[in-house]
């Protein structure tokens, strides 16, 4: 007997430990995290996940805590919960529709479905304290986990899958144990086998071992079963599974269908002057090459033979690192997709891409800077098995930010110069591992030793932006060593120019502050007029621009700024190139197209040996700043919000006042509305009238704080509410409570009392239990018996 008692006690302890109510919440959090990571490849960044996931976890945990407390006071999910969960699950569909209508951005069908599942999981997780919902939460979480892990190859997901499996097994064991503990009573009491704790990791080891093999196989096998966009049936612009599925441009690994600006392991024969050359031993007529140029030799196995015409993809779609599916041979031929862009730029915008530098100005014309003092050939370094042309970037004053990558996808750019961002430190083109294919075009501008850059080439560049706030603390070197950079043409009235520059520079003695002040005044004083041209007879276009017309094109702003700063003694030069406009950023392709309209002129100022800092004197153009860290981003967001509120302070004040007033008098206003509706609505059936009256009373009491508990029937609750001192009131309450019982539970054929009498009682109770009366009742009762 004693042994039995001991076993029972031990079993209970284990059972309680296994019935961990928070496991469904943990499982759902793991599934949601996995989905967020899977989505990262499509729509997010690492830091976004790092911020988003903890916020989601915190909100879900908090809501779970709040809802589980409600359980403690007797509130349990009702029928409305199912409706709310359904709404949550379907919410991504209208949101997606709005998103697609308002912008180019969109999600794929599978991500849309998964977002619905995610919402459902979140909703179920916060009410998983309730029996039934916890099981549903775990099942839906498992579905979400399977689907989410199937669409990504991120290694972090493997870890999450393992964690999910461990928690899932633990939960299942708890569930099983729970069911056992309810059935086995008395004599035979099973003991929880502790060796299972050791066995679980052993069982998981084979799973871990085969996971890297199975996961890719599953990714290939499951698309037929998982909900997926596109496929072989139709073309979805937001699909992510390769050619013919959508507009996504995927590097070919097996069956290339078109030429495009992607880095791939497959090369096809082309008549264009390609950057790559492969020795072909096949019989047959070789393709007729229109023009030859220098190229990189590749091994023959890179060449893929195709007798079909290859299409050309000049427009970028979304890019994914997914494994491309094996294609059936009956695919329809690809059509050419043309683009008016000269190149696409991947990376942060705004960005200036330099093509040519000018240093000599004669008052009317600028002349290109000559290449002096640069080595003949550039140095090539292998970084992580990738050949990089490294450009030395001295930074004695430590004003440069860490290197930042950009991708240039050349479409129709007919030049051999590589558009280079300021502070260029490296250039990389896939498989181009010969330094002699590159050369200096000008100081800090690299060109390829070819006639022009080959189309559809992807060029990776690394550059370092300038931390401008550091320039205020450092010594600005005026002289670059070349007098030409400080030269003001004779046709320009230098004294007048210097006077203007000094007046714009202000009283500050800090050189960088003075430089920024001049540029800022120029941006404020003159306006951009693309059609304005200085008179042909004018030999001092800058003077005409600054002192007379005060309007002109971007090259006039650049010229004026360059001369103004030269008059202050600084070394400047004018640069032409492309401006990567952030307003043109394409959400869908995650690239910014650069066209002919983006040709732009700006200037650079010499600050220290080897460092030329970009200045943007033209209004409407901005310079790329160093990437802000998380704290700076938060601060910027906060500042933007505060500024927005301050700018619309009156609107916000009025809205706040309205909201506060509405909140303060919410009970009175709502009661007036509901009572008015109660009077207006004529119910056909007596029961409906009684139930509506009961609902009105419940609402009134809820606003005051007398909430009917879930285990209280209406009649008992009404009787507990009634003021026992007032006999008439008590009588009315008793009659109405009886009617409410009848309306809710009596069979349909059973009638209560005459219709007129019934409506009279309803009228009486509505008149007795006014908001004021209920408030009075509450204040009179020190304890609130029906408040749950």
């Amino acid at each position, binding site marked *: 007997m004693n042994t039995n008692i001991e076993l029972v006690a031990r079993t209970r302890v284990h059972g309680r430990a296994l019935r961990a109510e928070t496991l469904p919440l943990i499982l759902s959090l793991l599934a949601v995290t996995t989905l967020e990571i899977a989505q990262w490849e499509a729509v997010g960044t690492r830091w976004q996940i790092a911020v988003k996931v903890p916020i989601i976890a915190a909100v879900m945990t908090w809501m779970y805590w709040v809802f589980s407390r409600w*359980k403690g006071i007797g509130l349990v999910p009702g029928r409305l919960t199912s409706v709310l969960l359904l709404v949550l699950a379907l919410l991504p569909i209208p949101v997606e529709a709005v998103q697609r209508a308002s912008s180019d951005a969109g999600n794929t069908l599978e991500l849309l479905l998964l977002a619905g599942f995610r919402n459902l999981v979140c909703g179920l997780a916060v009410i998983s304290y309730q029996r039934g919902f916890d099981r549903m939460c775990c099942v839906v979480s498992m579905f979400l986990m399977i689907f989410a892990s199937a669409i990504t190859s991120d290694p972090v997901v493997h870890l999450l899958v393992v964690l999910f499996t461990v928690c899932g097994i633990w939960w299942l064991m708890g569930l099983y144990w729970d069911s056992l503990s309810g059935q086995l009573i008395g004599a035979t009491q099973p003991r929880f086998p502790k060796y299972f704790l050791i066995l679980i990791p052993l069982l998981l080891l084979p799973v871990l071992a085969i996971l890297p093999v199975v996961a890719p196989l599953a990714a290939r096998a499951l698309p037929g079963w998982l909900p997926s966009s596109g496929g072989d049936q139709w073309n979805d612009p937001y699909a992510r599974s390769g050619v013919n599925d959508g507009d996504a441009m995927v590097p070919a690994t097996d069956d290339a269908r078109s030429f495009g600006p992607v880095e791939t392991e497959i090369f096809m024969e082309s008549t264009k002057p390609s950057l790559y050359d492969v020795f072909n031993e096949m019989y047959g007529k070789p393709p007729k090459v229109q023009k030859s140029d220098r190229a990189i030799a590749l091994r023959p196995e890179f060449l893929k033979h195709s007798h079909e015409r290859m299409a050309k993809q000049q427009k970028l779609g979304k890019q994914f690192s997914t494994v491309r599916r094996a294609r059936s041979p009956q695919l329809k031929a690809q059509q050419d997709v043309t683009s008016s862009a000269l190149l696409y730029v991947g990376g942060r915008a705004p960005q200036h891409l330099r093509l040519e530098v000018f240093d000599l100005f004669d008052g009317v014309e600028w002349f290109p800077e000559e290449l002096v003092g640069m080595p003949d050939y550039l140095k090539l370094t292998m970084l992580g098995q990738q050949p990089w042309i490294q450009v030395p970037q001295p930074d004695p004053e430590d004003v440069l930010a860490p290197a930042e990558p950009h991708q240039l996808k050349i479409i129709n750019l007919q030049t051999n110069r590589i558009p280079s961002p300021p502070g260029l430190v490296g250039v990389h083109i896939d498989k181009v591992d010969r330094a002699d294919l590159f050369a200096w075009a000008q100081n800090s501008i690299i060109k390829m030793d070819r006639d022009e850059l080959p189309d559809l080439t992807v060029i990776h560049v690394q550059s370092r932006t300038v931390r401008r706030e550091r320039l205020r603390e450092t010594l600005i070197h005026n002289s670059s060593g070349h007098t030409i950079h400080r030269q003001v043409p004779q046709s320009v009235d230098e004294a007048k120019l210097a006077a203007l520059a000094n007046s714009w520079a202000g009283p500050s003695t800090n050189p960088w502050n003075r430089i920024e002040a001049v540029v800022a005044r120029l941006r404020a004083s003159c306006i951009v007029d693309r059609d304005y041209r200085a008179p042909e007879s004018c030999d001092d276009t800058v003077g005409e621009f600054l002192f007379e017309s005060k309007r002109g094109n971007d090259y006039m702003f650049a010229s004026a700024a360059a001369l103004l700063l030269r008059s202050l003694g600084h070394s400047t030069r004018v640069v032409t190139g492309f401006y990567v406009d952030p307003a043109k950023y394409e959400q869908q392709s995650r690239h910014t197209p650069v066209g002919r309209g983006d040709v732009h002129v700006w200037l650079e100022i010499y600050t220290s040996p080897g460092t030329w800092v970009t200045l943007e004197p033209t209004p409407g153009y901005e310079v790329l700043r160093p990437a802000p860290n998380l704290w700076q981003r938060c601060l910027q967001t906060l500042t933007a919000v505060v500024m927005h509120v301050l700018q619309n302070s009156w609107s916000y004040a009025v809205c706040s006042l309205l909201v506060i007033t509405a909140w303060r008098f919410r009970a009175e206003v709502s009661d007036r509305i509901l009572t008015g509706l109660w009077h207006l609505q004529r119910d056909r059936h007596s029961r409906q009238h009684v139930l509506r009256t009961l609902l009105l009373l419940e609402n009134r009491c809820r606003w005051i704080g007398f909430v009917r508990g879930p285990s209280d029937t209406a009649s008992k609750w009404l009787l507990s509410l009634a003021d026992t001192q007032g006999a008439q009131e008590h009588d009315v309450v*008793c009659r109405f409570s009886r009617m409410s019982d009848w309306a*809710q539970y009596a069979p349909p054929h059973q009638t209560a009392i005459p219709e007129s009498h019934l409506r009279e009682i309803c009228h009486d109770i509505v008149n007795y239990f006014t908001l004021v009366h209920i408030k009075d009742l509450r204040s009179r009762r020190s304890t609130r018996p029906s408040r749950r």
Partner: protein
Amino acid sequence: MPGYRILAGDTIIIMPVQSCPLSPSHAQDLAGIDQVRVALNGVLRGKPNVIENVLVCLLAQGHLLIEDRPGLGKTTLAKALADAVGGHLARVQCTPDLLPSDITGFSIFNQKAHEFEFRPGPVFSEVLLADEINRSTPRTQSALLEAMAERQVTVDGLRHPLSPQFLVIATQNPHEQHGTYPLPEAQLDRFAMKLSVGYPESDDEIEMLAAAATTIDDREARPAILVPGQLFRLQQSVRHLSIDRSVQDYLVRLAQATRRHPHISLGVSPRGLLTWQRAAQAQAFLRSREFVTPDDVQDVALPVLSVRLGIERDDPESIIRELLKTVSVS
């Protein structure tokens, strides 16, 4: 006293009669029940709630287990009830040497007729009072299983039907452990309710003493209050009371809650659920209502559940009240 009664806490609120939807036969039957109530209240003073539950059990055609200390009126109440409802009362004083045949009856060989003839036991009565039931052995206790559940006994392979009004009122003293045999779950599940009488209030005890000082101890049986067949008619009326689907749903959710509760090792069985519903119908009947509300379910929950739930803690009442509070009515 016809009317509409609502139990609010420990007080019974009598509603106005004029608006009560009662049929004439219903009102007449209720008058008989009111007389029984008055008679029982006269015997057991100051315990109206116990009397109400006894009436519920009677109308629900259930068997009653009264558990309390000695001398609190358990047997008196049982005898008074048997007298009130009429019919034959049989009493069995349960002891360890009591045999099953002492309850069910036995067959004896008739020398004259040269055949076995059946001598019916005490179960062949309208009311069987099994005093100190936990003093009989499990074998003897089991003799009551068939009688209580199916209202019949089988002796020597022959089935003998019992009275349709057959009612078992069993008493037991929970505080004496020596020489007792706890009732098995199967036996407990056949009782509709378990009641505790408890000590009376001081005023009631004074009144009791005053009445006893002047009254001659009358050991004669009191005349029956209910006419023959009236109890059966009342029980049939209870069966015809309407119960809404939502109330049945509430009952089922409560039953499921008892099966999932961590401190309850044995939840309500389907038989227990049927008994609970019938008790709720009887409660509604006593409140002069022709339909059942969740209040009826809640009000009979404690006596119905306390007899059949396997509760691991010493305070079953608090667990049952917790169950009632956590399960939503709608």
